[in-house]
């Protein structure tokens, strides 16, 4: 590998942008494909699939064996609300490899005793969220049920390119939320980005089951092709 290639990989990783290194394992020839260049690459179908799956593997192209090594950023999960469901969701998400942050201005909820080993920010969303640099590899969930906290948080998430946004609440609650968010200038397309009621429909009842439903929906959004991840 060229030192220049190695430096470029590290720079992209530091900026949380994915890259794929394509190595011809017959002769060692190598090239780096940045995320922005995938769409016009001759191998774009394979590159897109490998990036979506976060999977490195060998493919055969015209009799040559190419190793596609995928470097994708660690996915982040931002949880609004240090509530009961979050206590189940945070460790589940961590076990799936997510970098988890819980935000709740109510310090009685956001206590380290309730959330051992989880990054907690006891601030309002307008203070807590900007430094988190919510990006394409971030999933965002609003779980407080309290519009004073959830609404400004969702407004922030909707301005960003996060791959998943979900909000707790019944269809009725979500309908009222949509009215409030539209009054704040959110478009119909913006409202449609919010998964609500949150989580896959698996009949979840307990906080732990709801956490499973949420992580299942986030996983589908991360891994499935766009057309079938809705």
């Amino acid at each position, binding site marked *: *590998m*060229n*030192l220049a290639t*190695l*430096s470029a*990989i*590290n720079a992209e*990783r530091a900026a949380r942008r*994915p890259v794929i290194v394509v*190595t011809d*394992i017959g002769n*060692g020839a*190598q090239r780096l494909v940045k995320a922005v260049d995938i769409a016009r690459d001759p191998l774009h179908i394979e590159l897109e699939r490998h990036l979506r*799956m*976060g*999977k*490195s*593997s*060998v493919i055969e192209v015209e009799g040559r064996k190419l*190793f596609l*090594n*995928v*470097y*994708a*950023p*660690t*996915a982040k999960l931002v949880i609004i609300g240090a509530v009961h469901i979050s206590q189940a969701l945070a460790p589940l998400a961590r076990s*799936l*490899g*997510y970098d988890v942050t819980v935000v709740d201005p109510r310090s009685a909820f956001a206590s380290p005793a309730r959330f051992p080993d989880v990054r907690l920010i006891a601030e309002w969303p307008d203070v807590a969220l900007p430094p988190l640099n919510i990006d394409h590899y971030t999933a965002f969930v609003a779980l407080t049920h309290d519009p004073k906290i959830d609404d400004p948080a969702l407004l922030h998430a909707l301005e960003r390119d996060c791959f998943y946004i979900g909000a707790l609440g019944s269809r009725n609650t979500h309908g009222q939320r949509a009215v409030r968010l539209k009054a704040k200038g959110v478009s119909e397309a913006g409202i449609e980005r919010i998964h609500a009621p949150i989580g896959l429909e698996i009949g979840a009842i307990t906080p732990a089951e709801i956490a499973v439903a949420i992580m299942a929906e986030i996983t589908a959004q991360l891994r499935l092709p766009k057309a079938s991840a809705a």
Partner: protein
Amino acid sequence: MLDRDEDILKAAESWAEAGKGVALATVVETWGSAPRPAGSGLVVNEDGTFLGSVSGGCVEGAVVTEALDVISSGAPRMLEFGVADEAAWTVGLSCGGRIRVFVEKVV
């Protein structure tokens, strides 16, 4: 995409920039119950210092030795290991698999 040993490439870059010979070893193919997936790797410098892993411990020593040869020769090579041998069992690895490891010099 989750949970990778990403610091090894930073080490590779800083070693190479400091003028040391450096090689990268990367798992490119696995069969059976190989302990580390494709894309896992380790980085070795000319002093034999290494970071990362390709197997969970059973073949690292051999990979490091081969990597030192690659640093000397400059020519990449492909290594293949079965990890179903007795040595692997005695250290308690989940085995029965084979891995192919690509070793290349940073130039």
